[in-house]
């Protein structure tokens, strides 16, 4: 579904991604871990099409087409979804309006009829239960005045409504207490499906206790330096990121390609 090859990207003249490789297949859940500044969020933003980042090399193939050629909205309509690390507050735009406009934009792209207000409300009520969001949230401005946990749950609500093919969760666990984390994880788990891939970007392995990944990759200095299964995250938890740096880097890098690229 997603093939990232030798991706280089920079922002404000500074190179952040320096030859990143990643392959994700339908049905898989990948976790990308790494220390602060390793390029995790940059990867998420570049995949979603944020224009502040300049892609200077490499390719990204999504469902057989060139993802980098697509505008952010075209990516969204093609089934790519980014759950933001810092969901943006949009005063004056109601949550329900955005959800409906987003869903209809995606449906239109798929050749499905747009939903009217009644059908939409029926659909969304089920989804709201999933992330334990009450109806009054719908009529508040997007993310405005939401707590950290509410913002993250709202992202997962959007994901549940849009039913993406590829979901990228950027630090979805940050700022969540344990109860909120469980709600969010529960929402994400219920969206796991053989047709859908999920890429989680996270600093801590805590999230992975609740959303168990098929693959774990370690990102360091703009490259994936090690890949493995669930146990790699536990090893990182125990030993920190420092053991991956320095002399180990070249060796694990080639291993990462082999593991992720199979």
């Amino acid at each position, binding site marked *: 579904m997603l093939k990232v090859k030798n991706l280089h990207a920079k922002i404000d003249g500074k190179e952040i991604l320096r030859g990143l490789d990643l392959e994700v297949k339908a049905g898989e859940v990948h976790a990308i871990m790494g220390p602060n500044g390793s390029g995790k969020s940059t990867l998420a933003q570049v995949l*979603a099409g944020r224009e502040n980042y300049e892609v200077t090399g490499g390719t990204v193939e999504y469902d057989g087409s060139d993802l980098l050629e697509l505008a952010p*909205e075209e990516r969204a309509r093609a089934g790519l979804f980014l759950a933001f690390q810092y969901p943006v507050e949009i005063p*004056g735009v109601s949550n*329900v309006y955005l959800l409906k406009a987003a869903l209809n934009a995606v449906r239109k792209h798929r050749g499905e009829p747009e939903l009217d207000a009644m059908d939409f409300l029926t659909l969304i009520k089920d989804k709201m239960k999933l992330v334990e969001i009450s109806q009054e949230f719908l009529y508040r401005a997007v993310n405005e005045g939401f707590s950290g946990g509410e913002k993250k749950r709202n992202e997962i609500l959007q994901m549940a409504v849009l039913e993406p093919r590829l979901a990228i969760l950027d630090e979805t666990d940050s700022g969540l207490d344990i109860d909120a984390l469980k709600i969010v994880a529960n929402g994400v788990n219920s969206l796991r499906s053989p047709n859908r891939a999920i890429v989680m970007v996270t600093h801590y392995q805590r999230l992975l206790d609740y959303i168990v990944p098929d693959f774990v990759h370690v990102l360091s200095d703009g490259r994936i330096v090690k890949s493995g299964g669930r146990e790699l995250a536990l090893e990182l938890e125990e030993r920190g990121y420092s053991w991956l740096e320095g002399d180990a880097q070249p060796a694990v890098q080639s291993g990462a390609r082999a593991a992720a690229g199979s």
Partner: protein
Amino acid sequence: MNAIERYSADFARIENTLPGSSISWLQDARRDALSRFAERGIPTTRDENWKYTDVSSLEKRALIAVPPTDRADAATLAASIERLALAAEYHLLVFVDGRYNRDLSRLGGLPAGATIGSMAEVLERNAGFNAGFLEAHFAGELWPHGAFGWLNTALAADGAVIHLEADTVVEQPVHLLFLATGSVSAIHPTNLIIAGNNTKVTAIEHYAGDDGATYFTNALTRVVVGDNANVAHYKLQQESAKAFHIAGIHAKQAAHSRFASHSISLGAQLARNDISTRLAAGSHCELNGLYLADGRRHVDHHTRIDHAEPDATSSEVYRGILDGGARGVFNGKVVVHQDAQHTDAKQENHNLLLSKNAEIDTKPELEIYADDVKCTHGATIGQLDDAMLFYLRSRGLDEAAARSLLIYAFAHDIIDRMALQPLRKRLERQLIDRLPLGSTEVSFSDLLLDGQSVTDQ
């Protein structure tokens, strides 16, 4: 011929055709106003109050006051009125090229203490009010004026009078519709709203003109808000894109009164509004405004709130959206006088610049002479937020739709402050018509037509 000579010639030419020309105090008041205008002259950018607004392009046009003509045919007029009217149940007073048109107007039933009608008819009949009462408002320095205000007093041919005796409530809003049908003329509407003690009324002052017509509207509205009275004033300026619009709206509020002013500026090549109120003890005012301009257009709001006595509150929010090479001016002055302890005054002005060439000059001015007061003000100038745009696009909205939505939400903050549903709907529609909507347009307008607004919260 310079502007003063030209307007003086104008005055000499039409003086005897003006309503009430045989009333001596009125004749004196008009002549006095003309001489005061001549003393001041047309303001230039050297005047502090006109620093950012250059009216020389208006003066080059040499637009003159013309006696009423019947150049527009009745069917066209009726169609325009139908299009511009807001609600069947509202009282509607129509002024065509500045003159009251009884046939096009429709006044519903009014309570006994309410008199609503044409200023010209009142002056001609010289009835309904005693002379001294009107004289107080026309003559002398009771009201703030400025050069254009004096010019209005000298040349005004008509306008609306709304007079409420104490304890009178007018349930339905009064829609004053000023329609300009032709070019090359100057129209000087004068409106007087007198709301006695414990009264309530809503007035909508609405200016519109035929597309492409070049004319000059120079309006002056005075509002007296009695003890514990409640007056809501809406101003909707949608003049022709070539028109010049200069207007004063001045209120005087008695104790415990409420006055709301909503100024919506959508049209004209040059628009200037001077809006002021003076607050007595325990009174409250709300001044809201929204201005939209693109191309080479210019829109200026100067507001002034005088907290003259204690325990009054004021809240002011103006928002502007400027595109192309448009220029906006906001100058909001709040004066807290020495006796005005416990004043609570809030002022905000937010501007959205949609192009590199758009400009805004915003200036909050606070003058505080009392020591136990709470005053805040803030002004912002910005562009559409990149992070917000990206967030919306990442959810599938195309760029034009995302931009439209953010612009709409920005402006809707002001519409949200308005109580009149038909006017809100009209403004929402006009706003949407001016947005760079994308392919999600259908669902965008869909929600409004459902009877919910985008910011329904």
